[in-house]
């Protein structure tokens, strides 16, 4: 497999999920990701090292989404929905990193798996099965407000778990560094 194929396979899914943050339409998101890879292909960016290449890919998809949203704004009826999306894009442009960029998606699924049953259930139904809050309320036979509260709390718990884990990784990394230092001393 050529380097380009490997790159495509490694990042396509993450970039696609990342684009879906801002662009709801799957086909549009796929097109935007295609454009980003075309950019890499044409500019021969493959020589960059992994970290830079990854940063470049995510920056490019973000810019592509921003451009797309700007064009869409003219036709959009829900200005404020767009407002939130744009606020979000600017937030990431200013250096904040999304979990999608930081984490391996499989690890996110693992974290979901380790949530409490009630929290796991509501995330699996909404994010894996695609059910809306109202449908979840019907399926579980609980009031809509309960589902909403559970979803909020489940996401909060998941976020905590993930940042905890990232923190651990960071700590381990520091320990490792220290060990290396000690060894070299």
């Amino acid at each position, binding site marked *: *497999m050529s380097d380009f*194929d490997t790159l*495509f*396979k490694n990042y*396509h*899914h993450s970039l*696609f*999920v*990342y684009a*879906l*943050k801002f662009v709801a339409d*799957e086909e549009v998101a*796929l097109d935007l*990701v*295609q454009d980003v*890879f*075309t950019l890499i*292909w044409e500019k021969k960016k493959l020589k960059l090292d992994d970290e830079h290449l990854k940063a470049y890919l995510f920056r490019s998809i973000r810019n592509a989404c921003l451009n797309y949203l700007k064009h869409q704004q003219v036709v959009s009826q*829900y200005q*404020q*929905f767009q*407002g*939130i999306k744009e*606020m*979000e894009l600017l*937030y990431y442009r200013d250096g*904040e990193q*999304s*979990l*999608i960029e930081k*984490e391996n*998606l499989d690890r*996110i*699924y693992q974290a*979901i798996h380790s949530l409490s049953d009630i929290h796991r259930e509501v*995330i699996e139904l*909404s*994010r*894996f099965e695609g059910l*809306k*809050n*109202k449908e979840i309320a019907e399926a579980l036979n609980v009031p*809509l*407000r309960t*589902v*909403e*509260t559970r*979803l*909020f*709390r489940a*996401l*909060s718990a*998941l*976020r905590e778990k*993930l940042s905890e884990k990232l923190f651990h990784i960071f700590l381990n990394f520091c320990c490792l560094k220290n060990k290396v230092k000690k060894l070299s001393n």
Partner: protein
Amino acid sequence: MNKTADHEQLIARYLNGNLSEEDNARLFQWIHKSPENKKQFLGLKDTWDASLKTASRETEQLLKFYKRQASQKQPRTFPSWVYGLSAAAILLLGLLIGGIFHSGLTSGTKQQVESFYVPQGSRSELTLADGTKVKLNADSRLEVSPDYSTKKRLVRLTGEAYFEVQSDVKNPFTVQTDKFDVLVTGTKFNVSSHAEDRQISTTLSEGCVQLRTNNKEVILLKPGEKISFDQRTMKPELKKVRIETELAWVNGEFIFKEILFSDLIKRLERWYDVRLSYQSKDLETMVYSGSFKNKETIWQVLDALKLTSPIDYKKKNFREFELIYKPM
């Protein structure tokens, strides 16, 4: 309602429910109340976005990527295209100015035959110096003689192409292939003559064409008729056909009627730029009819084959599949 608990509902509703305009305004207000709120909201939305489990489509998308590169890069990877088109433009210009320049130009380019090649997985279109339009199907080559002009209209084809020939009774348009020549005046027709196909054919949509085989047989076609030859015996077969079906590829569709399995496989290979292999002799005897819009992926096409006929498939390699005979 307790105001502090309220944002939990609003966020959950924003992410996965119906947010009324009023709710939306309230959420917006809450987010902008403090930087902490904004951070919390964006953090939760990010967690929400990151936990989406959706089909990963990288294999299909990688194929699509290469297809797109191939069709966009044609002028660059096949410089003969650019050369050919400019030559056609110069010839047209020459005709406008007058015969003197024309003869000079043709002698200047005499040695070179223009060759237009369309790779597997794409289709292309070109206009010749006399205004004749040619659509070339995947893996096809059209050679235009260097002195091609309104007076001498001769092209050579390997593969499949659809022609819309400019009407000129005095100067017939000729398509040469390995096994037969097609002579026409003003007309729309399709020629399919891939060397590796068992069946080769010509289909007439409008006008009148005359076909001359290498064995000096002459056959006249009427609109809506298709003449096919078995390449090994060159035995002709004349049929009435539905033009929309026969020429579907011109509009990017893929319709086939009663074609041999081996020819279907070759067409699919050309159309999708994949390799398909099979061992069983039982498959060879099957005859297929069906249609695909070109939006389907090769996976969907193979799944359709699997559902409708005793065939299973497995992926062998990148863009390579093996078909297996599986009696139902």
